[in-house]
């Protein structure tokens, strides 16, 4: 069942801006995701900032952030005008999505009773330590992957599309126009009803853009 559901996933290039997805449904699916997503020592060291349909300005700012990151990464001064004269980048779906989720790091300021008990017995947790929290970035990112995988599946079951963007500035100083991003961002997730899917727009060469073979990723250890 899960496999059949996930097979339906397709990267969205442009969302249908007329789609009406109630906030209550997004809230419900996020709550269900929160319930069934595990976390190391139950810290969940991340926050999910949800921008609804009304937040066009923030979405524009996040899109510009991604564009700037692409320019810096590839040493291209003006990627929009030099690279995207005939089409927009894939992450332009940020502009048309109904909901944009920004995952950022989170410091735990109120550990649960069991965590407090363990700390009193000599255990040490980066999730509660401001100066050591950045060391948790990779693990928090992995947990966000767990969370988004569940959320993506629940959205698909409800006929809603989602896509990921990993192209954005990591430094918080690059996010000062988006005031609630106070800690390192982890991933961007767009949500809505797809209008144009990447698969539909691929030319012959783009159709050869296949993932590495299974045997190059999964290795049964024989030695």
């Amino acid at each position, binding site marked *: 069942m899960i496999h059949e559901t*996930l097979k339906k996933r397709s990267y969205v290039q442009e969302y249908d801006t007329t789609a009406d997805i109630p906030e209550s449904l997004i809230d419900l699916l996020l709550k269900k995701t929160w319930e069934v997503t595990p976390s190391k020592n139950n810290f969940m060291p991340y926050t999910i900032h949800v921008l609804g349909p009304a937040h066009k300005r923030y979405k524009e700012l996040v899109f510009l952030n991604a564009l700037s990151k692409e320019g810096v990464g*590839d040493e291209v001064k003006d990627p929009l005008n030099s690279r995207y004269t005939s089409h927009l980048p894939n992450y332009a779906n940020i502009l048309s999505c109904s909901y944009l989720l920004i995952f950022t790091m989170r410091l735990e300021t109120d550990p649960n009773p069991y965590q407090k008990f363990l700390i009193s017995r000599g255990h040490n947790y980066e999730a509660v330590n401001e100066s050591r929290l950045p060391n948790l970035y990779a693990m928090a990112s992995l947990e966000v992957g767990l969370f988004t995988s569940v959320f993506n599946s629940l959205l698909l079951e409800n006929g809603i599309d989602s896509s990921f963007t990993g192209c954005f500035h990591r430094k918080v100083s690059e996010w000062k126009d988006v005031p609630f991003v106070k800690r390192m961002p982890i991933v961007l997730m767009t949500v809505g009803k797809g209008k144009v899917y990447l698969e539909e727009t691929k030319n012959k060469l783009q159709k050869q853009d296949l993932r590495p073979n299974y045997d190059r990723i999964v*290795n049964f250890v024989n030695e």
Partner: protein
Amino acid sequence: MIYETLGKHKHVMKYDQSAPIIDRAVLDRILEKTWKVTPSKNNIMAYNVFVIGPEHQNYKQAIYDICSRNEDKTNRRNPIPDTDKEKGRNPAYANIQNCQYLLVFTLRLGGPLNPFQQRQWDKGVCYDPCLEEGLWESRENIAVECGLFANTFRGLCVEEGIDTSFTANFAKEVELWSKLPFVSRRVMLLMTVGYAEIYREDYKAKGIYQGDVKPDYDRIVKFIVDETSTEMV
């Protein structure tokens, strides 16, 4: 349906060593299904999943020791002496020693490029995970992807009645993994597979782990209400 399926997942404290061994072909099939439906930025999939089978108890023990030493190292930062170490631990990652299969996710240098990626590269596009330095700088993106893969695998295992658990307490330095000849890049995640004998929930029923709940939903998910929202979280 997926919510109900994943709701059945529970952390395993100890795997049943008398249970029948899961056929390697079954695991291979589940992993291949996972590979098929897990997205990756630019289709690079810059990670490996090494599968350590039932015959490799030596590797499992070596990894358990790495985890245990890592816990020692971490807890030494707390000025309070580690009482549980002195009394004898029963850590959540002890399941590494009795699982049937252990999955070790590591970074993988991307490439060779597929025809489309090659054309893009020739036009000046850079795929960071295909360069040593870029791979390291991309490790958080790759961690997200490992999470996507691991969660799908977890769900497919639940559907087959197979238990899995995650371990994130391990040394990050590759040189500390020298007993595992196939680990040449940073480890991202450990995942155990088998049939459970004892779940963490079973301990909870006995009063252990009381009060160990995840942070409330409202502390994790924030709907941004207005453009002046600046809450520090």
